[in-house]
């Protein structure tokens, strides 16, 4: 029987199975951060349990660290960071704390250290664990009870999700990024279009993407409601892995390559759903509302609630417009912004920073706009500085920050003020996501950079026909 990538990984990780019951699945790598783990470690203590495999567990500090290089002043954040450090030392879990030189957003450091590998099962108490699926891993988010479960047993009871193949075809136009592809895809599927499913992205467009682009796509699978997203590993994947600290070397690499090559879905493998997305005419995407599915091309307009067929959608659109303080019919290009955030596990890797810097090179940020550029990890930051990107950002008038989640979630000092409007390269535009009363528009890194210069949304290809 031909099998999908997902089925191959699933079947090779089942530890115990009974009819009608969820399967007990082995977890190869468990990533931990400060926000969703303290109660899990406390649960272990209460029950007198240990961490079964500290050598398969890695912790980092990302969600609530300040990115201005200063001390942690918020007492809650400090208590949480201290709790993580204490828990890791009590239970023997390796940790990359702030200042270790390897810290960063959990979904950025796993791949860059070579810990994220094809064929693995990976979990993290953070929604965007799906990012790691870009390597052909089965990677999904878990809640705190499950964090405790994995710490104690290195396993997780799971029901098999349904599978959906998204075939991305056509040719990406110049200046169109993976972020536009995934925003456009979520716009098509809807924010609950993937519920109960695991998505495998395939097709010529995906094959042509770099690993970082693939990560951006898999990262936002969650925003379509899916359990996870994944992409079959290929030569692009294997080349990316080479020489990374935890990646196999020498003869181990040769053996790994044999295993990894066998992972791709077999010819004729069956998916419960197949969706085709043609990106031929895809324009840069901008969200207008309070879910990532509320998205239009930059040359479009804010929709009218009456444009939607379904009453629930009409009500949701009306509420979103009220929150976003937007009038139906407004051209997207007329929306003025106050802030720009370039960062988050969706778009904070070196390629993202290069694209943004290319737009900003030799230009000045609009004086009304405040721009934060936040590299995804200390490693990304060092590399960007070696390439001189930090200088471009600073000369344009952006703030160049330390690694962290920053303004993606408003849990650290980087927040929007009530009423402020932001062009953001992150993944969620929920009400208050970046700070209470803040208004978020999701875009790609070059589109965010272009908005920073113009002070409003603009098609980056018009602003900068060469740099894009």
């Amino acid at each position, binding site marked *: 029987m031909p099998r999908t990538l997902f089925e191959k990984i699933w079947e090779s990780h089942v*530890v*115990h199975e009974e009819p*009608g019951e969820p399967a*007990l699945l*082995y977890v190869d*790598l468990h990533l931990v951060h400060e*926000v*969703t783990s*303290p*109660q899990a470690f406390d*649960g272990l203590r209460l*029950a007198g349990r240990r961490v079964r495999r*500290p050598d*398969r567990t*890695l912790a980092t500090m990302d969600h609530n660290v300040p990115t201005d290089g200063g001390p942690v002043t*918020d007492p*809650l954040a400090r*208590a*949480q960071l201290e*709790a993580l450090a204490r828990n890791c030392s009590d239970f023997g879990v*390796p940790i990359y704390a702030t200042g270790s030189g390897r810290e960063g957003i959990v979904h950025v450091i796993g791949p860059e*250290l070579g*810990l994220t*590998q094809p*064929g*693995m099962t990976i979990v993290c*108490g*953070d*929604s965007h*664990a799906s990012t790691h699926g870009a390597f052909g891993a089965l990677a999904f*988010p*878990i*809640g*705190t*009870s*499950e964090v405790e*479960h994995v710490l*104690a*047993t*290195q*396993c997780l*009871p799971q029901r098999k999700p349904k599978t959906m193949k998204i075939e991305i075809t056509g040719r990406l136009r110049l200046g169109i990024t993976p972020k536009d592809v995934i925003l456009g895809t979520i716009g098509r599927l809807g*924010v*609950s279009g993937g*519920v*109960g499913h695991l998505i495998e992205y395939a097709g010529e467009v995906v094959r042509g993407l770099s690993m970082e682009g693939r990560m951006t796509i898999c990262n936002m699978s969650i925003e379509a*409601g899916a*359990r996870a997203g994944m992409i079959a590993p290929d030569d692009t994947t294997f080349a990316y892995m080479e020489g990374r600290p*935890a990646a196999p070397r020498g003869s181990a690499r040769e053996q790994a390559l044999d295993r990894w090559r066998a992972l791709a879905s077999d010819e004729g493998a069956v998916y419960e759903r197949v969706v085709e997305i043609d990106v031929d005419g895809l324009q840069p995407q901008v969200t207008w509302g309070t*879910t990532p599915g509320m998205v239009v091309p930059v040359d479009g307009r804010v929709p009218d609630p009456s444009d939607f067929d379904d009453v*629930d959608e009409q009500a*949701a659109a009306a509420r979103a417009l009220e929150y976003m303080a937007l009038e139906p019919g407004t051209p997207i290009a007329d929306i003025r912004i106050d802030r720009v955030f370039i960062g988050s596990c969706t778009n904070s890797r070196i390629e993202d920073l290069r694209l943004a810097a290319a737009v900003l090179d030799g230009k000045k940020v609009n004086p009304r706009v405040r721009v934060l550029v936040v590299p995804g990890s200390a490693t990304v930051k060092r590399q960007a500085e070696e390439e001189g990107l930090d200088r471009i950002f600073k000369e344009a008038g952006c703030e160049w920050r330390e690694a962290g989640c920053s303004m993606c979630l*408003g*849990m650290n000092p980087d927040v929007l003020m*009530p009423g402020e409007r932001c062009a953001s390269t992150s993944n*969620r535009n929920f*009400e*208050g996501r970046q700070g*209470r*009363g803040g208004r978020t528009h999701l875009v790609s890194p070059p589109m965010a950079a272009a908005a920073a210069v113009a002070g409003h949304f603009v098609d980056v290809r018009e602003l900068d026909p060469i740099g894009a």
Partner: protein
Amino acid sequence: MKAFRSLTGRVAVLDRSDVDTDQIVAKQALGRIDRTGFGQFLFYDWRFDFDGTPRPEFELNNPAFAGARILLAGRNFGCGSSREHAPWALQDYGFDVVIAPSFGDIFRSNCGKIGLVTIELDAAEVKRLMELVDLDRGSDMEVDLEAKTITDPRGRVIPFEYDEATRHRLLNGLDEIGLALQHEDEIAAYEASHPGPVATTAIR
């Protein structure tokens, strides 16, 4: 986890679709390292003004919903993040049951871990239940997980489906980790035959 069999309680109505976990629990709650006290942060930005005064126009501030233990919600309730703080906040506020046409996947799974019962009903059925709730005096319903039925305010009995494994755990208040550790031999055998792709996460 405490066992859940059945309950008769006050119903609250929140007729909005795609209510995400960022709305369900306010950020200031995410900084906590305790497992309790999350109820005060439930729907914080909707319940309260910037100065902390309750907003009377927000559904849950309706006095008829005071003490509610059952929440009737719109489709895709709990979409967004994996933060378990959202189910904790609902439970700590007093809810034991959420009924909606559909739920965010991880949210629903998280609820099942802590004994918060999530029931999926047909969208038309949820609308009908919402319409039956007396917004002035309040209404009660019964939820019976053992019989897998809801009794609406008029006494009509509505059956629902529920994941059997989760139901068994909830009815008996079983500790899932304890259940998994019954298979410790198999876990050890798996580990012995699968040395794993990465020697250790402690990279030098």
